[in-house]
């Protein structure tokens, strides 16, 4: 069977002061191959923990991740990851960064160059391929990170707030690029964000998580990602349903935040 299934995931760890944190509690989810999932939630809801478990950087205390029929035990090239910032290798050129995965696999030089060239074309950085990554702007650096991830041809792409550090204009362009790559490559993508608009635009499915313990609060199926492919994202945002969903989710998150604040005041 193809696809990613997250089965009854719980994550609990002890603190040095004797307390314990329930970061995730009984999270289950099935993703079909090629689905685009965005995860949203207030801070502390365990969304990054969830992503790290799927990536294989953390082991859950309960439950498991199954990808294409086998259990996930640790990080692997089948699950690519795009980080917010600072994950590029600044001692390598753009070309070497993008070619990192193929190099690790020992792909012959000629094939590697072809892969790198194709991806640099896709993200529009062909002219910058010999530049050092620190010479590029933030948006370009994230394009490199996307290309580097795609060069390995992973089954699943995990994105941890990849556009969080970009300015609003660059961010919009990058959102279109992510949609385009999703459609063209047919990859399964999990994207974590703290922007409600971004979650709506870049999620066929949208997961709203709640904190303490981290759990799935609500799930949506949305048409906007499909609408946004190759279209002007600003047009999508004008859609009445978009505005209505945005308000709904925003107030949902507001309520959660207020509940957290209230609980903190009680305990204080």
């Amino acid at each position, binding site marked *: 069977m193809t696809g990613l299934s997250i089965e009854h995931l719980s994550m609990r760890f002890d603190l040095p002061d004797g307390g314990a944190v329930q970061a995730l509690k009984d999270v289950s989810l099935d993703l079909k191959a090629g689905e685009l999932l965005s995860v949203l939630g207030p801070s502390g809801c365990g969304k990054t923990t969830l992503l790290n478990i799927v*990536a*294989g*950087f953390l082991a859950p205390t309960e439950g498991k991740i199954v990808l294409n029929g086998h259990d996930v035990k*640790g*990080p*692997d*090239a089948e*699950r*690519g*990851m795009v*980080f*917010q*910032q*600072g*994950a*590029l*290798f*600044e*001692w390598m050129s753009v070309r070497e960064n993008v070619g*990192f*995965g193929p190099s*690790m*696999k020992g792909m012959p030089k000629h094939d590697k160059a072809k892969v790198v060239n194709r991806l640099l074309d896709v993200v529009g950085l062909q002219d910058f391929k010999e530049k*050092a990554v*620190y010479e590029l702007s933030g948006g370009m650096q994230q394009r490199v*990170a996307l290309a*580097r*991830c795609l060069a*390995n041809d*992973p089954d699943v792409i*995990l994105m941890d707030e990849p556009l969080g550090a970009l300015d609003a204009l660059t961010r919009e362009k990058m959102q279109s690029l992510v949609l385009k790559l999703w459609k063209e490559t047919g990859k399964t993508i999990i994207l974590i964000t703290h922007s409600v608009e971004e979650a709506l635009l870049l999620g066929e499915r949208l997961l709203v998580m709640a904190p303490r313990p981290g759990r799935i609060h609500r799930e949506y199926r949305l048409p906007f990602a499909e609408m946004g492919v190759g279209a002007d994202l600003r047009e999508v945002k004008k859609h009445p349903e978009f505005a209505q969903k945005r308000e709904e989710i925003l107030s949902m998150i507001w309520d959660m935040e207020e509940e957290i604040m209230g609980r903190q005041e009680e305990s204080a």
Partner: protein
Amino acid sequence: MIPFLIYAGIFVAAFYMVRFVMERRGRSDYGSLKTVTFGDESAVVSNRYASVISILTIFLLWGMFTGSALLPKFLHAPGPFEGVATFEYTAAVGNDRDTATVTVLVHPISEDATAPQVDPGDGWAKNDSATVGAWRSGLIRVDRNDEIGRDAGAEVIEVDGQKIGPGRSVDTEFGRVGMSPKGTLNFEPRKGWQMEPIWLPAPEAVVSRVIEIAGEGFRGSTLWEHLGYSLFRVVVGFLCGAIVGIPLGYAMGLSNWFRGWFDPIVEFMRPVPPLALIPLVIIWAGIGETGKIILLFLAALWIMAIAARSGVSGVNISKVHAAYSLGASKWQIMRYVIIPNSLPEIFTGARVAMGVCWGTVVAAELVAAEKGAGMMIMVASKFQNTDIVIMGIILIGVIGFGIDMLMRWAERILVPWKGRG
């Protein structure tokens, strides 16, 4: 005090002069348009004119106060009196007074001189003559040739018409005349403001000594051998320290056990100044090359270990995670992520370690060595060869500076991504 005042004077005068010239010329770059410069760190750049004038001033003062031949005479600080000095003394036996003249030839201390011939003159006190080296003083037994000497009860009571007695002194035109407790005159010609070469030789004397030692050598080795030995010890000691220290630091950065095991040792040894290890190293390994290299090895080891450790700890976890999810193995993570990521830190450590090693080797050679820059200046100082000492200090400084420049240059070439992460 006076050199300091001159120095401060040049500092202030040069400031106003440069400012005046710059204002006349007019600047229009971005920095000149800033109205807030006091407190704006980026507005403070090293003034190149100030640097040049600063260096020139040091040489100027050095030349002025050593009477350097490189400077025109009118710039010299007043030198010691040289030439023929005279003063009169009055001796008395009871109420019988007589006056005679003392002629003193004050000669450069490097030359021999004979006392000038003088006419004995009339009266029972006869004229005297003597020689005294510049910057020195000399006892003059003025009564030696007098008809009534000290033995006969004559006493010197005045010099140049001013009263003098045992333990007192009189300032004359040519210097100070004092009287010893026994009544002998002591002439100390005026010293001026210049330094005696034995304290501070003139710049050209140092330069000519460099040339001399470069050609003839010092204590059986040429200058280059002395410096080369010091450098050789530093390079070998540093390399040994780096070869052991860097892997140790990596191990400490990558493994709990290694860090726990070596942390107490490294943290304890790091603040121990390498100089404090010299006695122990001499006891264990003697004063030969082995001892020196062990010392420098120990000086570099902890610095390099700590640099490598912090280089590993400083890696952004996202980079490691990214590399793992791109399919890298542990070895590949080491080779392509951890090592390049730690290189900037290691270079910084290497620069510090080279500086410390250079300082340590000189100190170790001061203590005991057969060859080396430190040994050269130590031996020279025992023989009051101040020019060699100053030459040695300057060369040690130049080499230390050169090492640092070389390391910075290597850093720029080899780790251009430093600070860009």
